[in-house]
């Protein structure tokens, strides 16, 4: 490892990149050449047969959503760690339980902080 000339090692990656780019370009180009060009308003909407658009998606929204989303991420990450922990829980024993307790305790401090600062109050 390491002593072979670099270009040869990375040749498969280069071929892969070329094929990947060619695939995208060729299929777009083929579609553009083959399909009929008859655009009209309904066809240019993002959802051709869905409900009509009523406003732009890029609008200002209250900061509260942002804080709720942040809190969601905290608990999401907690779950990400809890699942693999639960799978090997038998092998980890008491120490594993204590470690997870420490982890959750640190999270709880953060959650408690957010609660006290009124992040969960809607009005």
């Amino acid at each position: 490892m390491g002593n072979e000339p670099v270009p040869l090692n990375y040749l498969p990656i280069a071929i892969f990149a070329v094929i990947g780019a060619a695939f995208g370009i060729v299929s777009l180009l083929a579609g553009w050449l083959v399909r009929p060009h008859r655009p009209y308003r309904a066809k240019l909407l993002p959802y051709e047969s869905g409900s009509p658009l009523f406003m732009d998606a890029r609008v200002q929204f209250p900061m509260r959503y942002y804080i709720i989303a942040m809190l969601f991420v905290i608990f999401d990450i907690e779950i990400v760690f809890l699942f693999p922990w639960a799978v090997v829980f038998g092998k980890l024993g008491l120490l594993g339980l204590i470690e997870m307790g420490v982890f959750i305790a640190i999270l709880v401090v953060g959650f408690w902080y957010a609660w006290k600062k009124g992040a969960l109050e809607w009005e």
Partner: protein
Amino acid sequence: MTFDLVLSGSDLLLLAPEIFLTVWLCVVLAIDFSIKNLDHENIAYLSVGGVIATLLNLLWFDYLGVTGTLFHDMFVLDRLAIFFKIFVLLSTVLVILSSIDYVKSFRFFRGEYYFLVMMSALGMMFMASAHDLLSVFVTLEFSTFGFYVLVAYLRDDVKSNEAGLKFFILGVFAAGLLAYGVSLVYGETGTLVFSEMAHTPGSYGLAIGFLMIFAALGFKIGAVPFHSWIPDTYHGAPTPVTAFLSIAPKGAAMAILIRMFYVALAAFKPTWVLLFVVASILSMTYGNIVAIAQKNIKRLLAYSGIAQIGNVLIGLAAGTKRGSDAILFYLLTYLFANLGAFAVVIGVGNLIKSDEIEDYNGLNRRSPFLAAAMLIFLLSLAGVPPLAGFIGKLYIFVAAIDQELYTLLAVGLINIIISMYYYLVVVKKMYINEPVDPSPIRVSIPIKTVIYVGLAGTLILGIYPRPFIEWVVAATLMFSNVTDMVAAALPHGSGG
């Protein structure tokens, strides 16, 4: 890799300072949000108490000679790690003390400020112990996240927001470089632990990988050409945060740099010495020349910091045990002089609400104590005997002479003369120019304490450096065979 989670009591002892600080900062946060109308000064003193307790714990560890590794060599506690942890915590104590008055001007989130400062300090303590590229990445990000928030702490100040945004975007870019570099190095060596990389053959991938890691760490210490965030971020951030940013992360990142290049890359020393020579010459010259044109004291100290890091890199360019001793000692002298100078800037800034150098006109009339303190700190930064900065520069130049790096030495000496000019311009304004507003400036007791500590450190390190030199020599004892390793590895390790 086998999966085990074995931790014995003696292993946890190695983590005792970190565990204590973690619990302490959670408790400080809990006290802050659960007790209404608690004065933020109490939170500050509580934080200082916790950090000092951790500091004493580490001093005790140093005295006992506690060492060991944890988590498959990811975390190492040796005397080098203990030195840098003490370094980080000492600067944290001084920064918290000099923050107390400044935090009064915050409208919200006063208690959280101290929490974030301690959180960053905790991350930097882990950085000092990182012995594995993965822990380098995690701990570096850990410490930087606190700084992202701290830099943008003044919500209503456009400059602070701009500083935070610049720091964040470039910081994330550096993190990306670091992660990519780590992946390349792992691909070439098949390991992440520094000590296991020592005998890998050189290759392009390894060279590019470590170059990227160096770029990320160069961003952290603010070495040219990775310095572009420094002036605006230092200017816009709250002054105590600037003080913290200008010293603690540099120390912690230097711990990683020394470990990485002395342990993992010892065999490729002839190659990386060149890298540090170039980075050092660029940093010193650029920092000092651009500092001349500065009108703002924070920007001046930012550029002077870039130049000082250039001096520190001379030690790495020497690449010897003496080089690493000199780096540690130099950083110690820089800690006292730099934080002392920032304490004066914070004290003056709190009162006159300005950091322009013009407003330091006649500071001697307004407060002889502040002017004298600033004079001593600036002279130490410039390297005038008998102050600490002189011994630090002497030590680092001796390390360079040992390795016959005469070009570097010449550039370093010329730069001392350039730096003397802009430091003395400030001194001239303080002592000779007439003040516009002659009203006296008084500073509070915490800031005075920081200035006294800075003065004591600057004078003691300059007049009686022996115990501190013995300390840094002991801290880097494990590198005493570094030159032998290079000699042994030279015949087959010239690539990379």
